[in-house]
């Protein structure tokens, strides 16, 4: 079974986010593998294993040609990667991103496509379903458990009230939630091996996509302004001297909620 995992490379979320002068997210500097996608990579490796083999291919899009995030996923065990990199992609919206990813995924002819339900920096949560629509694939989002037997895929899909058991057939796209599996740490051997694994770097024209239709030029949306949100005023902070609980009780009383 051949599996494609969409993996996003993002600025380290531990660092404060920065915006460029044109109000797009500053993605300069080292990019890391989005933690959200590490679950998809682990799941893909496990599913390919369970199916008795098959290749895990990474697909990623980033304007600057960064590969450090991809190397992490390759070190975990993915076989190869397709990286779409093109200056024209700066400012791409979710639909543009999906168009580009879909075109790249087509090259790999997978039986299964995995993505995360939401990326850590964009968190639109629409890219995977848009990719599925563009590829004409069946899809299940918010998966917390996946089982595949033959052509049948069974997924436990997170819902508002619990979970649904949802079934579909391959080929399909599934987006997984955080915490579904425990992503493995790359071994030293894995890290060394990753250095020589193939990363196929392609441009928009390689994929046959007109640069004017994706990226800021074709996004169909335009940033008007970026402002500081109104801050909440800090209140009373007290050290617990054994009577801290009484402060809470008194406060709840003053609010008339008890």
């Amino acid at each position: 079974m051949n599996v494609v995992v969409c993996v996003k490379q993002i600025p380290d979320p531990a660092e404060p986010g920065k915006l460029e002068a044109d109000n797009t997210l500053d993605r300069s500097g080292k990019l890391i593998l989005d933690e959200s996608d590490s679950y998809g990579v682990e799941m893909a490796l496990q599913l390919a294993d369970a199916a008795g083999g098959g290749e895990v291919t990474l697909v990623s899009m980033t304007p600057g040609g960064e590969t450090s995030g991809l190397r992490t996923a390759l070190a975990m065990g993915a076989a190869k990667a397709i990286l779409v990199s093109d200056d024209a992609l700066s400012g791409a919206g979710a639909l543009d991103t999906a168009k580009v990813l879909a075109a790249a995924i087509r090259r790999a002819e997978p039986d299964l496509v995995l993505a995360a339900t939401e990326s850590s920096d964009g968190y639109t949560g629409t890219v995977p379903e848009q990719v599925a629509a563009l590829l004409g694939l069946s899809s299940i989002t918010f998966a917390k458990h996946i089982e595949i037997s033959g052509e049948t895929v069974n997924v436990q899909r997170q819902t508002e009230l619990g979970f649904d058991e949802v079934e579909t057939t391959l080929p399909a796209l599934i987006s997984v939630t955080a915490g579904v599996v425990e992503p493995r740490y790359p071994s030293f051997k894995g890290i060394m091996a990753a250095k020589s694994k193939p990363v196929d770097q392609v441009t928009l024209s390689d994929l046959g996509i007109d640069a004017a239709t994706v990226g800021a030029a074709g996004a169909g949306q335009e940033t008007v302004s970026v402002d500081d949100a109104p801050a909440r005023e800090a209140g009373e902070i007290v050290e617990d001297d054994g009577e801290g609980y009484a402060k809470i009780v008194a406060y709840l009383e003053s609010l008339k909620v008890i």
Partner: protein
Amino acid sequence: MALNRIWVYAEAADGKVAPITLEMLAKARELGGTVEAVYGDGDADAIAETLGAHGATKIYATGDLQGSTPGVPVGSALAKLIGDGDAPDLIMFGTTYEGRDVAARLSVALDRPVITNNTDIAVEGDAVVVTEPVFGGTKLVRTRFTAGAPHIALIRPKSFAAEESGGGAPEVVTIEVPDYGTAKVRNRHVEETTGPKLDEAAIVVSGGRGLGEAAKYEIIEDLAKALKGAPGASRAIVDAGWVPYSYQVGQTGKVVKPTVYIAAGISGATQHLVGMKGAKNIIAVNKDPEAPIFGVADLGIVGDVHKVLPKLLEALQAR
């Protein structure tokens, strides 16, 4: 350009309309024009009265989805309706499980962008402008749709107040579903919960990694019960498997706006704050005086949850 016609994607469970739907209907009426609802699945007649009372003047309904997940069938039904010439200027979806799937499918079918996670939407001159909080809600980005209508916007729950308009039950128009898709729901599992729902409760008591271990979460549930509220959680303890995902408050969890939010052993990462900063009153218990949660707390107790919470529970239960 005023908005002549707005569709609101309606969601309901067990015949009860979701709060996000009513919130969007209120906003849609404020934006002007004709407000209509679209509904995928189930019995539209059962919710017609509520939707009408909140301003929907017509309901486009797919009828039973035959067990399909809604993305493909509802997306294709709306695309067909629009393709046949019945297009609104704006379609509002909730940032929910189903809302995102349907909006994503529709966006591809119509080749229109979707703008997600919005907490506000307005008509400014000729344009529809949406507001999205980024960087944990510290910055607000306003974005204008530049592609032609219909615009597709996803709205965060709790962004607007629901308000009745006094309308009567509207006409239900059944729409054609060109494609039911092949993803089918075989079984539904509902987690048993007692007490109010997390995103509707007046009081929310949330626990985080500072509780130390899964067994210690019990006191959060006991406190929530004593206060007739709902228990919540940070993502750290959801990922650790202490509590189900449905407990999670924050960017990737639920947005809550209770009268009182109590955060116990939660550091206050920006992704958590985004889900609870809108609470009217915030109480925090954390042993680290530098914890960012104190930056938004109305009352902060610098102390050990294992000392403060048992005494608090005892005091509340004694009342």
